[in-house]
C-alpha cells in the first residue's frame, strides 16, 4: 500500500534535486571552497537535503517492500534474490547513466544510482540484523568517515572543485568507499537509518507506532543547529571535537547528522499529517505520480539539461565538450528551465501511468521481481 507521506517526501526530494542540478550544471556551483570541500553556503538551504532524503527514503521503501513480500508469504530466498536483482539493476543502470550522461571518462564517479544499488545489496545482506545493530552500523559509518577521508587524502581527488580520480583500481575503490560523489562511507547511514526507522513510523495494522525516530531526528537537528550557530558566533569547540563545517562534499559530521535528523523529523511529521487522509487527496495524487516515476525523472532530467551542453560544444567544434558546463546560462534562467521541466514531467508521468506503458521503475520491477 502506498504511503502518501513517502510520496510527498520523495516528490520534495525530486523537486529540490531537479532545481539544484539545473542550476549547478547550467549556471555555476555556489560557494566553492579552496580547501577541497564544497560548501552549501548556508546550512538552512534545503538544496543539500535532496540526496540525503532520497537515500533515506530508499531505505524506508526497501523495508516496506520487504514487509509487503513477507505478507504475501514469499520465501526468504525469493525476497533476497529480488533484492539482489534490484541492487544490481540500479548499479548497472548507474554505470550506463554515467557513461551516457557524464561521458565514459566519468564512468566511476560513484553517483547516487550506483550508491543506492550498493545500499540495496547491503540492506539485503543485513535484512535480518536486529535494529540496534543497524543503528550501530549507521553510527559507525558516520564516525569512521573522517578518518577514512584523512587516510585517502580526500582533497587530492577534488582539486578542481569536482571529483576527478585517476582510472586506477586503487582510486576507483577509494571513490566507492569514501571519496566519490556518494561513497559508502558515510552515505550508507541514510538508507540504514531509513530501514531501521520505518517499522516505528509505519507500524503494521493493529500495532502502535513509535515516537523514537522523530525524537531522534529532532535531537540530531537541534544538536547540529547548536553546533553551526556556535561556530558562526565565534565560539571555539574543544580540540577533541573537530567541527568540520556544513559541507556536502565531503559530507561533514554536521551535514550528515543535520540532514539525517531532518529526514527523520520530516518522515515522522509527514506520516502524522498526511497518511490518515488517505491516497485520494489532490496532494497525494500529484505526489504519487512524481514518486512512482522518480527514477525516470532522475534519468530524464539529466539527459534534457546535460546532453544539450555536450551537443552544443561538439556542434561548435570545441576541443572539450564540457566547455560550457556550469557556464551556459544565468542561474535565474536555469531555475526557470527547471520549473518548466517539472511542469512538463507531470503529464509525462501521467501518460506513463496508463496500462501497458512502463517507466524505468516498471522495467526494474519487470526484470527483478
Amino acid at each position, binding site marked *: 500500500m502506498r504511503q502518501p507521506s513517502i510520496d510527498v517526501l520523495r516528490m520534495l526530494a525530486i523537486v529540490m534535486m531537479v532545481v539544484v542540478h539545473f542550476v549547478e550544471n547550467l549556471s555555476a556551483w555556489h560557494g566553492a571552497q579552496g580547501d577541497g570541500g564544497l560548501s552549501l553556503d548556508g546550512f538552512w538551504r534545503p538544496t543539500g537535503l535532496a540526496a540525503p532524503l532520497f537515500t533515506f527514503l530508499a531505505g524506508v521503501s526497501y523495508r516496506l517492500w520487504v514487509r509487503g513480500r*513477507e505478507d504475501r508469504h514469499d520465501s526468504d530466498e525469493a525476497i533476497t534474490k529480488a533484492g539482489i536483482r534490484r541492487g544490481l539493476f540500479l548499479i548497472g543502470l548507474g554505470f550506463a547513466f554515467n557513461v551516457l550522461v557524464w561521458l565514459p571518462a566519468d564512468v566511476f564517479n560513484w553517483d547516487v544510482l550506483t550508491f543506492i544499488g550498493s545500499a540495496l545489496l547491503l540492506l539485503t545482506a543485513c535484512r*535480518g540484523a536486529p535494529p540496534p*545493530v543497524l543503528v*550501530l552500523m549507521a553510527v*559507525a559509518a558516520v564516525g569512521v568517515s573522517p578518518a577514512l577521508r584523512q587516510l585517502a587524502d580526500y582533497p587530492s581527488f577534488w582539486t578542481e572543485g569536482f571529483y576527478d580520480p585517476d582510472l586506477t583500481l586503487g582510486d576507483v*575503490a577509494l571513490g566507492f568507499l569514501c571519496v566519490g560523489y556518494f561513497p559508502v*562511507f558515510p552515505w550508507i547511514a541514510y538508507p540504514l537509518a531509513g530501514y531501521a526507522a520505518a517499522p516505528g513510523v509505519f507500524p503494521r495494522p493493529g500495532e502502535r507506532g513509535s515516537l523514537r525516530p522523530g525524537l531522534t531526528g529532532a535531537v540530531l537537528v537541534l544538536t547540529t543547529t547548536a553546533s553551526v550557530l556556535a561556530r558562526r558566533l565565534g565560539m571555539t569547540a574543544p580540540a577533541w571535537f573537530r567541527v568540520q563545517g556544513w559541507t556536502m562534499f565531503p559530507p561533514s559530521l554536521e551535514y550528515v547528522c543535520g540532514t539525517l535528523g531532518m529526514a527523520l523529523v520530516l518522515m515522522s511529521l509527514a506520516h502524522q499529517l498526511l497518511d490518515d487522509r488517505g491516497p485520494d487527496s489532490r496532494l497525494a495524487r500529484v505526489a504519487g505520480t512524481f514518486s512512482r516515476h522518480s527514477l525516470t525523472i532522475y534519468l530524464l532530467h539529466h539527459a534534457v539539461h546535460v546532453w544539450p551542453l555536450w551537443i552544443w560544444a561538439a556542434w561548435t567544434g570545441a576541443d572539450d565538450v564540457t566547455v560550457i558546463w556550469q557556464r551556459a546560462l544565468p542561474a535565474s534562467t536555469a531555475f526557470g528551465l527547471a520549473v518548466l521541466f517539472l511542469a512538463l514531467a507531470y503529464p509525462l508521468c501521467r501518460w506513463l501511468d496508463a496500462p501497458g506503458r512502463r517507466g524505468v521503475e516498471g522495467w526494474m520491477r519487470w526484470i527483478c521481481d
Partner: protein
Amino acid sequence: MTPQTAAPRTAPATVPLPAEGTCGAANVEWISALELALLVVSARPDEAATLPAEALAWVEATGPAQTIAIHGAAIAWAPGRAALLVEPTRCEAVRAALIEFGMHDRDLRELEAEVAAGWADLESDAPLAFDFRDRDAERRAGLGERFRRLVALRARLVRLVPHLDRPPLHPPTLASQVGERLRERARMAERAGHLGMQLEVHERVYDLCGQRASEWSLAHRSRGLEWAVVVLLAVETALILVDLLASRGS
C-alpha cells in the same frame, strides 16, 4: 395439576409462554445465569408422568428436546428451554438437579465452542511449531496469549470433569437419578473426553511453538552480539583497506 408455588422469576419478553390453560396453572421461571426458561408444572402423585403436549411443544420451539420420564417425574430439555413435571414435595430437589445439570452443560458447551474457535488459529500457528523466523517475531505475543488461553481451558475442563463423571449415589434419590439420566442423555462424559483429546492436540502444537520461539529469542540475542562484532571488524577492514589503497596510490 396445581400451580407450582416456588418463588417466581420474570421471564424475558422474548420467551412466549404456553397458551393459557393448556398446561394448567404452570409457572415459567427465567434462570438468567443459564439463559434458560424453565416451565415447572406440579403433578399429583396419582397422575401419569407425562408432560402435556403443549408444554413439550413449547420446549421444542427452540430445537429438538431430550425427554426423560422417571419415578413420576417428566423432563423435557432443549437449548434455552426446559419443562419439568414433578410432585410438589420433590420439586425443589429435582429443580436443583436440573439447574446443576444446566450449569455443567453450559460450561461444557462454552469449552467446546472455545476449542472449536481455536482451530483456525491452530492451523495458522502450526508451521511455527517447526520453524520460527524473524518475520514471526511479531506473533510471539499472540502465541503467548493463545497458550495462556489454552492453559485456562484445560484448567476449566479438569475442574468440570469430576462433576460429569461421578459414581452413582447410593441409595439413589429421584434428584440424583434425574441428574445421572440427563448427563447420560447429553453424553457429557464422552464429550469431555473428546474435548480433552482436542486440547491435547492444541497443547502439543503450542508447546512446540513456545520451544521454537524461545530458541529463536536466545539465538536472536546472541546474533545481535555477533552482528556487532561483524560491524566492528568491517569498520576495521575498511580502515585497513583505505589505508592500503591510499599508500599504494601515493
